[in-house]
């Protein structure tokens, strides 16, 4: 019997070889694909376990502090320390901190926008009388904005050391003196945040010990004495921040005599001409100066950014060629007890592109309602506090975990960019729309002093006893979160969050891309990939089972005529069935053995062998069932009017169509869901990282899918064409050209292959639509399928030997 079966196999050499190849592909690639799919899932899980947890696990805020953006979009602005309203007292924080399930509870209290001392910039002594006209500018990285108004100083000469003759309009505060031309650099306001030194250090690893420093400069002492010893707010300045500040300077050489102007102001030869500011003639004298002919004029812009820090400036001077250097001689301004608080930004239009509108179109423009607070030294001797910069802190420039987001990270270094890629920076005024990181930190006592008894805006909590971010960890975190929720706090679990780029429409600037923190990314990633893995597994298994059924059903149909013949010559039905089965058993088993060999070569894991063995067993079962089932044959004598060949050969063609349909489903769904999930994941940093980790695995799954699809389609068409080989030779006998036969064939084959593929594509698209895959990816997946399979089919038809 085996010999008879073997003979038929050999007789149908090409058909046998193709089905062998197809079976081997199935036996090797299905376990391979399943393995890859499983590996993808475990890679994602591992990545999340390792990187999913940020520096802290949850954010505890006073009740109803969630903003509309957070509620609607599920995202949190980076560095969001918002409107500094506070709401949690130091006592409450202490209670949270003492909970043993909590490892760290680090409070933040945003105090508002503060300034430090400002120093002067000294203008150079030039050889000729010169008018300096200057204007300070700040910048948001894209545009420059003038600060205060443009001013002029008329320099005549240095009559002797310590006596520089210059004239400028003095309004109120007089910081002018005769030894040098000193201009005070305008103040800039930066975000000051209060922290608890110990817990903050534990949470972030940043050294804040400078906060313990005592500052006892002579200058501070004098100030404190003069102002009735107000409390000192010690500030640590972030070391890597500089202020975007420049000065535009026009120098105009004038042909004027000092003496002439001294006379005009009724001053004597040795007098300092600035004394003339109190003269009645001053206005007309300034007017005269303005009308003096200009001998030579130059304009330069000097960038002062690198010398200026948020809470501490540097005294500067300009050399003769207008280069800035540090100066020993300076005047300073200490009016640090004025500060600003800014409201939250009101994001409009949350369903499409969130919009940020101008609140005040000043220079620079302001996007938040800014409120002035504190007491100015100029108005009162009873000032509430005095800001003193006592040291610096350096946020880790390269945090170990860039993938996990930490809203209220307060040191966030993510950049906002325009759509053209220009980096935007916060301006020197409090109203900037860019979420500013904490430029300076201070103590909680200072926060109480400035904000009152509930100064804390948020507490970042790290749960104790977590090593990796797995399911157990998630449960622990949510238990702690529930407890805090019960106490009435607003709690957001931020472990497993990541960054996501959000496009904003900023009035006056245009589209701006900002990294925002998306909550729950890790859970979503896990569930997305779990789902993709499940789908892939399901698809592969379904494909292989259906393929086996369809393929063996086809074999059975081919055998139909032969079986009738054998029956006619007196074979028993059971013998016929046995013969047919033995042939398929042989093919299946040979394929199985070859597959085992290949799997060994591919260094397959144990489960892969098991899957192949299961497929082998399944194949045997299906064959036995199908080939021993009674065939229901009804014969038809009238020809079909249309699609005659297709309907006549339906027993052979329908299985082939089924395989095409299955293949297009497999390829289409696989491409679409992988692409869709990939794209969905890549929105966040963590997701993108997992994508990079699994890229090759996913590509290999796709390759496996393509190979399975293409091979099975090739095999089924090939089998079909071999079966109808005599038909094709007949065409040639009756004198058709090869071209005519091909044309005829393409016409027929196109009809049923395309309908099968289109049916598959439509069915696939419908399924994908219900799986919520985006239209774009459905299009790509189905397009790929259609093109790939159509090309395969045409290659098979066109390369047919006729």
């Amino acid at each position: 019997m085996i010999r008879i079966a073997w003979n038929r196999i050999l007789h149908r050499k090409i058909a046998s070889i193709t089905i062998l190849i197809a079976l081997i592909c199935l036996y090797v690639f299905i376990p391979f694909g399943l393995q890859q799919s499983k590996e993808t899932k475990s890679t994602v899980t591992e990545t999340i376990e390792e990187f999913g947890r940020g520096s802290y696990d949850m954010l505890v805020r006073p009740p109803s502090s969630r903003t509309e953006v957070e509620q609607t979009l599920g995202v949190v602005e980076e560095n969001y320390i918002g409107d500094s309203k506070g709401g949690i007292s130091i006592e409450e924080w202490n209670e949270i901190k003492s909970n043993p399930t909590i490892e760290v509870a680090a409070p933040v209290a945003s105090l508002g926008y503060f300034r430090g001392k400002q120093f002067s910039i000294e203008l150079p002594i030039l050889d000729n009388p010169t008018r300096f006209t200057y204007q300070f500018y700040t910048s948001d990285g894209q545009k420059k904005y003038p600060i205060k108004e443009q001013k002029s100083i008329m320099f005549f000469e240095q009559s002797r050391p310590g006596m520089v003759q210059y004239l400028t309009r003095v309004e109120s505060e007089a910081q002018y003196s005769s030894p040098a031309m000193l201009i005070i650099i305008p103040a800039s306001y930066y975000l000051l945040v209060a922290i608890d030194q110990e817990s903050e250090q534990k949470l972030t690893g940043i050294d804040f010990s400078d906060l313990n420093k005592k500052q006892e400069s002579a200058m501070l002492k004098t100030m404190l004495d003069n102002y009735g010893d107000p409390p000192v707010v010690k500030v640590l300045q972030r070391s890597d921040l500089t202020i975007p500040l420049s000065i535009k300077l026009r120098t105009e050489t004038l042909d004027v005599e000092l003496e002439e102007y001294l006379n005009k102001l009724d001053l004597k030869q040795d007098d300092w001409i600035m004394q003339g500011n109190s003269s009645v003639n001053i206005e007309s004298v300034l007017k005269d100066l303005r009308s003096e002919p200009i001998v030579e004029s130059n304009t330069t812009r000097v960038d002062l950014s690198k010398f200026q820090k948020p809470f501490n400036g540097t005294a500067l001077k300009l050399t003769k060629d207008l280069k800035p250097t540090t100066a020993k001689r300076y005047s300073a301004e200490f009016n640090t007890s004025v500060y600003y608080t800014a409201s939250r930004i009101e994001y409009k239009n949350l369903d499409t592109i969130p919009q940020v509108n101008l609140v005040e179109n000043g220079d620079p423009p302001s996007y938040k309602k800014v409120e002035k607070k504190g007491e100015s030294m100029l108005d009162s001797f009873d000032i509430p506090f005095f800001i003193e910069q006592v040291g610096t802190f350096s946020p880790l420039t390269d945090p170990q975990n860039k993938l996990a987001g930490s809203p209220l990270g307060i040191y966030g270094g993510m950049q906002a960019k325009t759509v053209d890629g220009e980096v935007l920076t916060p301006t020197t005024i409090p109203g900037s729309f860019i979420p500013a990181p904490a430029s300076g930190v201070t103590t909680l006592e200072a926060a109480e002093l400035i904000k009152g008894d509930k100064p804390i805006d948020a507490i970042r909590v790290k749960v104790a006893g977590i090593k990796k971010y797995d399911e157990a960890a998630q449960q622990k975190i949510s238990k702690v979160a529930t407890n805090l929720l019960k106490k009435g706090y607003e709690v957001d679990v931020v472990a497993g969050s990541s960054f996501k780029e959000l496009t904003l429409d900023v009035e006056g600037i245009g589209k701006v891309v900002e990294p925002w923190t998306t909550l729950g990314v890790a859970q979503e990633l896990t569930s997305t990939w779990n789902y993709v893995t499940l789908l892939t597994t399901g698809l592969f298994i379904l494909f292989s089972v259906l393929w086996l059924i369809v393929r063996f059903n086809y074999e059975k149909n081919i055998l139909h005529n032969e079986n009738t013949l054998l029956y006619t010559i007196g074979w028993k039905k059971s013998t016929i069935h046995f013969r047919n089965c033995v042939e398929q058993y042989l093919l299946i088993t040979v394929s199985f053995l070859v597959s085992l060999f290949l799997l060994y070569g591919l260094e397959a894991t144990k489960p892969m062998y098991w899957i192949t063995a299961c497929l082998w067993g399944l194949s045997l079962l299906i064959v036995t069932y199908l080939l021993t089932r009674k065939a229901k044959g009804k014969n038809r004598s009238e020809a079909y009017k249309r699609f005659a060949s297709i309907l006549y050969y339906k027993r052979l063609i329908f299985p082939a169509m089924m395989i095409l349909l299955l293949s297009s489903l497999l390829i289409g769904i696989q491409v679409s869901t992988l692409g869709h999930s990939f794209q969905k994941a890549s929105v966040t940093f963590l997701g993108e990282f997992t994508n990079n980790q699994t890229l090759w695995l996913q590509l290999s799954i796709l390759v496996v899918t393509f190979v399975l699809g293409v091979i099975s389609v090739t095999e089924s068409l090939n089998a079909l064409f071999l079966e109808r080989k005599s038909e094709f030779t007949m065409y040639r006998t009756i004198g058709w050209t090869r071209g005519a036969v091909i044309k005829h064939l393409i016409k027929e084959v196109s009809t049923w292959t395309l309908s099968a593929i289109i049916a598959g594509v439509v069915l696939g698209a419908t399924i994908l639509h219900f799986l919520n895959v985006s239209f774009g990816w459905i299009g790509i997946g189905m397009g790929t399928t259609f093109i790939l399979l159509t090309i395969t089919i045409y290659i098979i038809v066109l390369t047919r030997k006729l």
Partner: protein
Amino acid sequence: MISVKNVSKSFQHLSLSQKTVILQNVDLSIPKGSWISIVGPSGSGKSTLLNIISGLLKPDTGEIYYNDVDLYQLHNKAKSDFRRKTIGFVFQDFKLLPYYSVVDNVMLPLLYDRKKKELYDKAVTLLQSIGIKKELFSRLPEGLSGGEKQRVAIARSLIADPDVMVCDEPTGNLDRENRDRIIDLLGQLREDGKTIILVTHDLDVADHGDKLYFLKDGSLTLGGVSV
């Protein structure tokens, strides 16, 4: 006028590295409008010779001329066109497409050369002229008797109005009555001026030709003349 000049053909055996010579230096001239019959034992190469004459099998040596046309010098497409228009082929086992109706089978050779309607009319006329009943036109070949099948096959070979009819044992599968009908039909065709080349091992059938050839041991010998 068809001339077979010095044609030889042998087949390579797959297993034995050995050749079997089937035809050896065969020469044959077939005048236009004549009917020649070829007889010979099974396996003597009759079908092989017919295939060579009708352009389906290239001989190892020698040429086939249709008037001045050297058949095997034609390019593929030209050869197909030539064969379709000049030669009608009839087989012992009919070789009808199982899924096409009787009419469609007849139309098949010219399916891509002519207008459907025109072709259909011609097929119907042909079928009627060889005595196929109308109700069989839309049937599948399976539902026809052997004689009917062969007549349909002959109708198919006639659709392009070929000058030459090549018949490979057209009556081999038929009973006496059907055999006679086919012979009558071929006789009529010859009267219409067609050249007929017929292979058979039925001497009664062979007798109807102008000339009778024997094919044996690779060579062709003239057997006899009948009227």
